[in-house]
């Protein structure tokens, strides 16, 4: 009998790569390989999800990752994230102003009539989830006609360039805590360069959630919505669109637009608070950070969510969790969604799927060790039993 342990690893790995790739291609003879543009457009929301969880805004490589991972979102985000490790961080943008976004969709569930108006844009929210059988066998002609028809019915002036933020109005009325200037001037925590050591600032929590796995965020946010928490949010504004990215010009130093990224942003307003929750990060003393007279008036509290791509469920979940975490940081957590360690260490898809997958690796040595303990314990208890019987 030979050495049975875990021989033949190299061959097995090559074999599994080959069969994995074979499954991607076994279709009919006239099958076309997926090209990255097709993935980016026809699987737009899958692409959004991967770019957001991957944490690098690289639409082309995100498409490649989806193709390579055969559509597994966790795996695709992982490939993109690993690519990120090879890239140095060269520059940091200033805080970008989302009121300058080129909007494709913006809604408010707080007010019927918001400045600039509601703009539904592309959403499945009001679709009947019935099978569209006509898509089963779609001809290229009909496919192309859809774009042509839609564009011919629009004019450039249909959509304003930018929309004001809904929250501005509420803030002017004194229903929201004033902007915490101390918090704003703080350097944002870079989760890609620093480990989370608790307690962490709010910017670290936001950054972690921005590239978190959507399902994980949703599950914890949902627990809060159902009663393991009390955020009771109202979506003050949800906007989707393209945010201009500004960097200082290398020669003049003047802020210059270097491109744009598609993002989803959500602001929720929640039950009011005596001192206003947003002063939490500035200090624990009530109202200590704010100099104006409104500090003692109760105000609504805010939750903020934003991520790359078009991922509305993620942005809303994140905003709810931002609010619940702020409460937990202030008063101590009273449920999982308010506990920063619980939420922030368990929402990363790359971490959690990696660890879950690793259980499929051999654990012979540790299991051998486990058996040793169990057998010894059983022996000892048998001996005890025997002794008892003998003395009885």
């Amino acid at each position: 009998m030979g050495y049975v342990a875990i021989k033949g690893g190299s061959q097995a790995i090559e074999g599994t790569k080959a069969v994995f790739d074979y499954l991607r291609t076994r279709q009919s003879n006239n099958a076309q390989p997926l090209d990255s543009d097709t993935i980016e457009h026809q699987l737009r929301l899958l692409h959004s999800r991967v770019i957001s969880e991957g944490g690098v805004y690289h639409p082309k490589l995100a498409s490649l990752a989806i193709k390579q991972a055969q559509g597994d979102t966790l795996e695709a985000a992982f490939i993109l994230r690993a690519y990120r490790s090879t890239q140095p961080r060269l520059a940091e943008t200033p805080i970008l102003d989302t009121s300058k976004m080129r909007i494709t969709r913006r809604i408010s569930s707080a007010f019927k009539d918001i400045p600039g108006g509601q703009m539904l844009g592309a959403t499945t929210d009001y679709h009947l989830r019935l099978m569209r059988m006509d898509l089963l066998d779609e001809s290229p002609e009909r496919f192309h006609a859809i774009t042509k028809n839609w564009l011919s019915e629009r004019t450039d002036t249909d959509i304003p360039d930018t929309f004001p933020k809904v929250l501005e109005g509420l803030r002017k009325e004194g229903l929201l805590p004033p902007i915490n200037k101390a918090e704003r001037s703080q350097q944002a925590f870079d989760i890609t360069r620093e480990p989370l050591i608790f307690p962490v600032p709010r910017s670290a929590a936001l950054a972690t959630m921005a590239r978190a796995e959507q399902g994980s965020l949703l599950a914890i946010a949902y627990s809060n919505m159902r009663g393991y928490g009390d955020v009771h949010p109202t979506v003050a504004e949800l906007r989707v669109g393209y945010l201009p990215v500004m960097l200082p010009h290398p020669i003049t130093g003047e802020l210059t637009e270097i491109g744009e990224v598609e993002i989803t942003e959500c602001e929720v307003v929640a039950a009011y608070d005596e001192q206003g929750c947003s002063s939490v990060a500035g200090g624990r003393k009530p109202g200590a950070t704010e100099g104006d007279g409104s500090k003692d008036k109760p105000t609504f509290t805010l939750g903020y969510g934003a991520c790359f791509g078009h991922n509305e469920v993620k942005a809303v979940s994140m905003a709810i969790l931002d609010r619940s975490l702020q409460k937990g940081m202030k008063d101590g957590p009273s449920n999982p969604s308010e506990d920063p360690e619980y939420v922030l260490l368990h929402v990363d898809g790359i971490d959690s799927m990696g660890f879950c997958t690793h259980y499929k690796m051999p654990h012979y040595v540790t299991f051998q060790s486990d058996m040793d303990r169990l057998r010894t314990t059983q022996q000892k208890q048998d001996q005890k039993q025997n002794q008892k019987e003998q003395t009885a």
Partner: protein
Amino acid sequence: MSASYPFGFLDEYAKKEVRRSALKAVAIPGYQVPYSSREMPMGRGFGTGGLQLTLSLLGKGETLKVIDQGSDDSVNAVNLRSFIEMTCEGIHTTTRTDEADFIQSRHRIPEKPLREDQLIVLQVPYPDPLVIVEPSEDKRKMLHGEGDYSRLLVKLYEDIVKFDEITISHRYPTRINGHYVIDPSPIPRWDVPKLHQSPALILLGAGREKKIYAVPPYTNAEPLAFDDVPFRTEDFIDKTGQRRACNRCGCTSSFLDEFVDSNTGEKVYQCSDADWCDEQRSTEKSESIDLEEREVANG
């Protein structure tokens, strides 16, 4: 578009951070140094912490050995080794413990005693031994700082009360240099004594949990135990009181893997450390050749 990778895959800033964290870990034996931990192209839990240490520390011309469960040819070891070979041009690899400058391992420390000029990196899933008694990292940090391991000792005591035996089988909590208690990674208890006063530097890397810690050379490493209940390693004594031997090389002093022979249905034991097993076999062979030669000479 082609993705070309820098030496050691990681960008230079990342490698520098890992090196500095490793230095700090050596300076404070057993202390878990937090570091940012980059995503690697293999799963979290597959040794990304160990891998980042290896990629940051390994230099051209050095010789590397990668093992998983004691085996150089297990799927994961093969995968890690070929990735390191692909991204670190100019390094050598070996399966011989003797020949390696640098060993990356999961779940085992080689049977052959390591030397001063060698370094071993262990892959760590759970860096904190206190996690079994305290889920919050914030609170655990305080307990470590105060050297307060009373709850761990209570857990060991409760084991004895309930099961007449300490039930921790692997990842056995071990006190380093008289202060910090570490999780020595899922090595069996068999390997824990090898940490004590080891001539080789032992580095431990947890990628997912973003921690690096170390057992520096010639440092005390004492598994937690009681005066009247000493620490015990796995024993491989059969019903007749004999130490089981490796079915392949006959060694009676190594950690054994147990499995069932698919032909006979019998339980079979073999060395978990593949290189050790091969070496025992070859020395056995050469000894028997020596014997034959002597017999020939005498005859």
